[in-house]
């Protein structure tokens, strides 16, 4: 069979299947979020007011239920949530009355910027240290590299952040976050200063797995047959290293980076709170402490959509890096 026929058939089938599977996953996520946050707590009025329902009269409770849309049956509640989510306002925050969509529109760019900075720093550090380690396995430098990887894995982000804040603020009296948060387009220099340390904390968390993946991928690729072929045809050592070894090692590194970018969003919850960045993480935590379930629900959903989007992007890059994956 010719190449053309095979490719066209796959083109017809796979993307359709893929898009279908993304949507089923998103649907599953929405149900999961809905169940976790609406059904398990039983009564979100208790949550919203932080009081026992006994204090309120039955009429008051009924009114409140209608007000929050929780008087309806579960499927109806789900549908009305989905309706508000999909039409764009995502519901309203109980305490402020601002639409969750507009809150998210402000918070999301902060988190994405933070995650991007963290990923870039982490990938650069991770690949650098991983290559440094893999050059001479078993040597002192390999030990040092692996120790870095291990510590980056083991020191929690909140410890690192707290330490940095303590040292910077108290010893150097440097408060880039002490004032109002400045957006990138308002004052890029100030914004980057505010983002630097939280980005670094997240970057270190990303660097650890990227470093380990880089190291093992490089060590594995060195022994591959095609590397021997390249050496056997007289390719210079430098080109063997870059074109053959590093190029093939990129495949697992890309996969690992994609996964880590997703986990960074979780790390953002902690880091944003310590460094007072008005991102999605702080929005969620704020909503949780105020028991604003509608906000939590929609924000968590946004996180999940972001996570899926990153998976799709990783997949696209992966296809670029590895021609064996059917397009």
């Amino acid at each position, binding site marked *: 069979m010719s190449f053309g026929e095979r490719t066209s058939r796959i083109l017809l089938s796979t993307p359709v299947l893929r898009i279908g599977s993304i949507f089923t996953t998103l649907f599953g996520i929405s149900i999961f979020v809905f169940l*976790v946050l609406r059904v398990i*707590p039983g009564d979100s009025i208790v949550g919203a007011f932080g009081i026992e329902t006994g204090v309120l009269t039955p009429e008051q409770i009924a009114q409140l239920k209608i007000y929050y849309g929780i008087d309806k049956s579960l499927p109806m509640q789900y549908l009305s949530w989905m309706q508000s989510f999909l039409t764009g306002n995502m519901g309203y925050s109980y305490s402020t009355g601002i639409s969750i969509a507009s809150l998210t529109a402000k918070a999301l760019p902060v988190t994405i910027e933070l995650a991007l900075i963290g990923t870039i720093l982490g990938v650069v550090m991770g690949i650098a240290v991983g290559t440094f380690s893999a050059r001479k396995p078993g040597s002192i430098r390999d030990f040092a590299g692996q120790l870095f990887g291990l*510590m980056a894995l*083991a020191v*929690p982000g909140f410890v690192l952040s707290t330490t940095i*804040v303590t040292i910077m603020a108290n010893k150097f009296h440097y408060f880039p976050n002490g004032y109002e948060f400045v957006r990138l387009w308002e004052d890029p220099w100030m914004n980057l200063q505010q983002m630097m340390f939280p980005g670094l904390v997240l970057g270190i968390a990303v660097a650890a797995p990227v470093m380990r993946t880089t190291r093992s991928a490089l060590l594995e690729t060195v022994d591959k047959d095609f590397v021997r072929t390249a050496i056997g045809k007289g390719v210079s050592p430098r080109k063997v290293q870059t074109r053959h070894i590093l190029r093939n090692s990129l495949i697992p590194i890309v996969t690992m980076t994609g996964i880590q970018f997703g986990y960074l*969003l979780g*790390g953002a919850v902690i880091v944003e709170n310590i460094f007072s960045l008005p991102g999605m993480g702080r929005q969620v935590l704020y909503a949780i402490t105020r028991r604003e379930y509608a906000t939590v629900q929609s924000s968590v959903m946004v996180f999940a959509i972001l996570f899926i989007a990153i998976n799709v992007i990783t997949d696209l890059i992966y296809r670029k890096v590895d021609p064996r994956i059917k397009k």
Partner: protein
Amino acid sequence: MKRDPLKPKGGFYYYMQSTSGIVGALLLIFMVIVSICAVFGWLPHDPLEQNVEFAMQGPSTTFWFGTDEFGRDIFSRSLDGMRRSLTVSVSAVSIAATIGVTLGILSGYLGRWFDQLVVRLSDVIFAFPAILLALAIVSTLGNSWYQTSLAIAVVYTPIFIRVARGPVLTVKEMDYVKVTRILGFSSLRILRKHILPNVTAPIVVQVALSLSWAILTESGLSFLGLGTQPPNASLGLMVSEAQSIAAFAWWALFFPSAFITIVVVGLNLVGDGLRDALDPARRSS
């Protein structure tokens, strides 16, 4: 007693060949002893006892790790906090591993719609960053230790599903399993005698790694105020409480942080050691 040279060397033999495995095991044993002391209350001070007179004292012979702003003994509180962290993590990982491995093995072995369903479900949970999902669940469940455990268990179950399912899919296609089908053995026997023994290695490694993640998640939750509640001691909570005084009392930040780091390092090293010991490809003959 002379060792039978024909008897294959056990995993323990290979484990003891790995330096990182031994170091990790020592760190872990140390932390377990520390937790046991806390369980039986063999502590120099009451971790909850406040004594303003002794507030914010540096490490000394009386207060080995110093005291916090309420004059509580940080050493005793760290030990007690480690106990809590380990309790929550071990219960969470036990639940996650039991459910995850069972589902993973069944879904890998049975295939078809059951597999589809399980994989989809775990994909859904996978789509959330771990700490965020734990946070959301804790916020609705409540934050007693078993509720926290349950939340963390939900987060890590899909990982065990994946870790168990993958090798089952591989082993299921091995010729020695096909032979058992030709020989007419029951599915239960094939699973128990031929598949399970050959998929345990990655699961065991995963237990060690998941424990370390669970500890990080638990202390993260406590740090954010959604895990252990004051005045009880928890490592994450202690770091959180130390934020305001760290500039003047470094010990309040340092010691609980060091405890978390040591136990996570220990578990990761144990994971590396187990992987080296249990992977036949790494055992050079």
